[in-house]
Structures are given as structure tokens and as C-alpha cells.
């Protein structure tokens, strides 16, 4: 019994330990992701320096794209070209991730009414010149990037080589939104597809769902309902007070009325039979 408890505790301890390590790894990744390759690493850490630490490199309560990248799950996206069959998908059961943010289809700033403006204002391709998972990105840069830039002169394309870091596409839109796509082990074609998606999007649609797949400026042609819509035209000629209209609508029939109705029906039936006989 005692041993069981001990074992449980050890197990529990291990689980905690793994979690901590995950957090640490995440932090390290965050730190490395924020930095360019110009940084000179210093080995000592003075207590005073701790004040200088920037906030965004610490663990945030809501998991962002960095986190998805770390736990090795496919980052869900609106029009997803990256879902690979066989890629392990881990569900993160934090409350904020149970639901996607609902959105409607909309066009930014009447785009296309006058002329079409590509909403992608700049895109940064971050990659390493030697690491293996950047191969697709490097190939894309070597063979396709010039064409991409030529086809989209309205988009500024930046290249940011960094040592020993994974490939990332960082897109900035005209509405000020920024989208980060992690392209670990993506092939050249996949990179091209993602860049095409980014080019055709109007903003960062990550973590959102569309409430409707259509949009109309005129949800009702008829207009709002008023008490006078579909009113019986007979009512225009009625004189009030009116005994018929004053009666409750849901009043049940009385026994006398029902008897009278049955009697009338019998009479009609008998007259029909007489007609047939003749």
C-alpha cells in the first residue's frame, strides 16, 4: 500500500516534471524565436539584469502559435493546406481553445468596389541556411521566390536567415494583423501554397470560424415586420364595436353549436342521397 502511494507520488512527480520541462522548452523556443542571429550570448546572469527581461518571452496564459509549434501539433487554420495525414494531432483541452472565435465574411474597406488592393503588405521568410527542416524553404527561395515577388509587386518580401532555427512565414496585413506560420519540414510546394494563401487572405483568420458561408447586404427584401404587415384588408371596412371581432379567438364550441353542426351535416347528407335516388 505504502509503496503504491510512493509510486503514485513518483509518477505524479514525473508528470509535473515533464510539464515543467515543456514550459521551459517553450520558453527557450520563444526566446530563440524572438532573436536574430546577431546576438552575442553571455554566460553570466546578474540579478539586476532580471529587471530588463521583456514580458513576451515569458509563458503567456493563452497558448499562441508558438505553443502549437512546440507541442508538435498541426496548427489549425481556416483554409488548411498543411494537414498531413499521419501527423499526430494533440488536443489542447484548455478552456480558451474549446471554441473558435466566430466571424462573418467581410471585405475590408470596400476592397474591390473601386479597385482590388492586395491586403498582404509584407511577408518575412525566416529560415536557417544549414538546418534540415528548412530545406523546403531554402528550395522555395532558390527557385520560386523571385517569381513570387514579381507577381506580387505590392507585397514587400523580406528574407531573414537565422542560424539553427526553424522556418517561419511571417505575414503582415493592411489591417495591422500579423500571422505566423511555422513551416517545419514543409516542402517547396507547401511553402508556395501557404504563401499563396497569405496573399489571398484579407487578414489573420487563425483560430476563427465563419458563422455563415455567405453574406448579403439585404437580409430582408420585404423589410421589418410591423403590426400592419399582412393585415386582413376586410378590417378596413369594419365598424367598431363589433361583436364578432370582440369574441376571444380560441373559444371552444359549445355543445349546442356542435349539435347544430351535426344536424346540418345530416341534412346535407340526406339531401345528397335523395338526389342520387332520383
Amino acid at each position, binding site marked *: 500500500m505504502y509503496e503504491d502511494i510512493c509510486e503514485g507520488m513518483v509518477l505524479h512527480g514525473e508528470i509535473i516534471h515533464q510539464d515543467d520541462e515543456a514550459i521551459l522548452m517553450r520558453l527557450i523556443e520563444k526566446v530563440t524565436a524572438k532573436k536574430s542571429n546577431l546576438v552575442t550570448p553571455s554566460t553570466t546572469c546578474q540579478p539586476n539584469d532580471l529587471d*530588463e527581461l521583456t514580458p513576451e518571452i515569458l509563458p503567456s496564459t493563452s497558448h499562441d502559435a508558438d505553443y502549437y509549434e512546440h507541442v508538435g501539433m498541426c496548427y489549425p487554420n481556416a483554409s488548411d493546406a498543411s494537414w498531413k495525414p499521419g501527423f499526430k494531432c494533440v488536443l489542447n483541452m484548455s478552456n480558451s481553445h474549446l471554441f473558435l472565435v466566430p466571424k462573418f465574411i467581410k471585405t475590408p474597406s*470596400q476592397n474591390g468596389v473601386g479597385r482590388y488592393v492586395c491586403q498582404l503588405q509584407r511577408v518575412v521568410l525566416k529560415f536557417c541556411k544549414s538546418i534540415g527542416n528548412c530545406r523546403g524553404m531554402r528550395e522555395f527561395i532558390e527557385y520560386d521566390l523571385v517569381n513570387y515577388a514579381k507577381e506580387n509587386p505590392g507585397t514587400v518580401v523580406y528574407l531573414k536567415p537565422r542560424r539553427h532555427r526553424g522556418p517561419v512565414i511571417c505575414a503582415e496585413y493592411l489591417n495591422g494583423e500579423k500571422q505566423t506560420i511555422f513551416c517545419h519540414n514543409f516542402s517547396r510546394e507547401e511553402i508556395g501554397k501557404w504563401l499563396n494563401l497569405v496573399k489571398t487572405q484579407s487578414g489573420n483568420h487563425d483560430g476563427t470560424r465563419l458563422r455563415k458561408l455567405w453574406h448579403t447586404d439585404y437580409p430582408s427584401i420585404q423589410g421589418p415586420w410591423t403590426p400592419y404587415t399582412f393585415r386582413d384588408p376586410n378590417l378596413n371596412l369594419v365598424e367598431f364595436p363589433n361583436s364578432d371581432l370582440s369574441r376571444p379567438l380560441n373559444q371552444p364550441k359549445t355543445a349546442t353549436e356542435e349539435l347544430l353542426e351535426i344536424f346540418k351535416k345530416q341534412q346535407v347528407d340526406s339531401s345528397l342521397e335523395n338526389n342520387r335516388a332520383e
Partner: protein
Amino acid sequence: MALFRYSVYRSLFKVCQQISQKQLAARTISRWVAPTLRELEKRRKKAGPKPLQHRSTFLEWNYDAELYAFGKRIGEEFNRDLLQRALVHKSYVIQQEMKGNPNDSFSNFEDNSELIKEGENLIVDRIMRKYKDVYPNLVTSAICTYLTSKTMLAHVASYMGVKDIILCADFPVEESTLANTFKAITAALNQTNTDRTDMFIDDFLICQIHNKDIFEIWDVKNPYELLVQLSKEKGVSDIEARLCNQSASNTILANYQVGLYSNKKLLGIGWGESIDTAKETAALDAIRKLQNFSV
């Protein structure tokens, strides 16, 4: 400074990693890590959010490329110097002079104050020309005020992507600066190629009234009186208001329906919580029908 911070942070975790590798047999993380992280989190909260940084301070920034892309994005050919000048605000020139570097590459150009004035005239002129013959003066001026408002111009400018390439002293860029930039760009385009100006204003600014209700743009003060006046001009007289329907009077949901007739012909119909409001709504409806508003 930021780089220094990162380096400190990175080194902290390198040390941490090394230690954890050494103590692999123990399968634990050193006991100092958690309290340190906790302390860091506390200090982070105390320091508050990081101040915004201008995009031009980033490592990946090329102003020439941005300028080129701006022209291509909105589909116009600009004289480069003129475009550059349109983006330099007076506040920026003053700021550079105060800093003591008047030989800055951008200060060779004048600031855009003249272009702003010219652009404003161009825009107003274009809107007036477009709507003068279609709508009465009142409506045209209302549309003009709506479109040339600071908010609208700033909105249009920001969706053209000028926010990051404006050279001005204020950061984050203020609405008025954005609005002025749009005017200056219009003037710069006009000086480059006069034929494109009208099309540019149509495509970026005037299209903003697409799908807008006219009465969202034009606030009519006394609709009934205005209707009488407008219908006189059109030769329609003897406007008569009639109560068509009423329901739930003397309650909080009271509503009335008023129709405006002339010669037994319905001009407009409207609803309201009192007879007066219903009459005004009817007048607005009649004005809309009378003027054939399609906006």
C-alpha cells in the same frame, strides 16, 4: 537593449539546460528554476505591457522597397520624389532638425504641407463634380463632409498601407496625420499624372459610400418642411398627411403609420412611436422616392 535582454534570458536557460543535463540521473529540474520564473513573471506583470515599436526599427525593413510596393499596391505610377515628399510631414522635419541632423536623407525634400492643401482641393472638387448634377446641393455637401471627414480619410489611408511608411513625429500615427497623408498622396499623383487623379479618388474614397443609406450620411433636420420645399421645385403640391394605421396607443409600444399623399397618390409612408415621428419618417421616405436616391 532588447538584444541584451534576450541574450540574458537565453543564457539563463542555457545554464538551466546544462544543469538539467548534468543532473539527468536525478530527473528533476533544479529547485531554483521555479522560484526564478515566478519572480520573473511577477516583475513582468509589474513592468506592464511592452511599448509599441515602429515597424522601421525592425531588422527586416527597407524603406525603398516599401515605397515601391506602396505604388504598386494601389496600382499607380508615382514620381518617386513626389511620393517621398507626400509622406514627409512637417513634424518629422522639425523633429530631425531638433535632433541636429538636418542632412538626413529625407530632409532634402520639402515637407508635404503644400501637397496637403492641394490634395484637399482636388478631393472636394472631384466629389462636387461627381454629385453636383445628380443630387441637390444639400445632399452633395453632406456627402462631401462625410467623405472628407478626418476619420474617413484616415480609414482609407490606413487601408492603403501608409501607416508604416509615413514620416512624422507622432507614434502611433494620429488620425489627422493619416488623413493629411491621403490628401498629399492625391496631390502627388495629380502632379505625376493628372489623368489618373479622378479615378484614384473614385476608387479609394468615393467607393466608401457604396451600400450606405443616404440618411446615414445626410442628417435631415426638418424632413417635412424640406419635402414641401423639394416637391414644390418638382411641381408636386398639396401634400397631405394621413394617419393610415395605429396600434397600442396609450401604451409603451404605441405605434402609428402615416402616409403622405398628393392628389390621392402616395408619396411616402412611415412609422413611428408618435404621429409626429411617423410623419417625419414618411417625409424621409417621400424625399428618398422623390430624389431617386440610389446611394
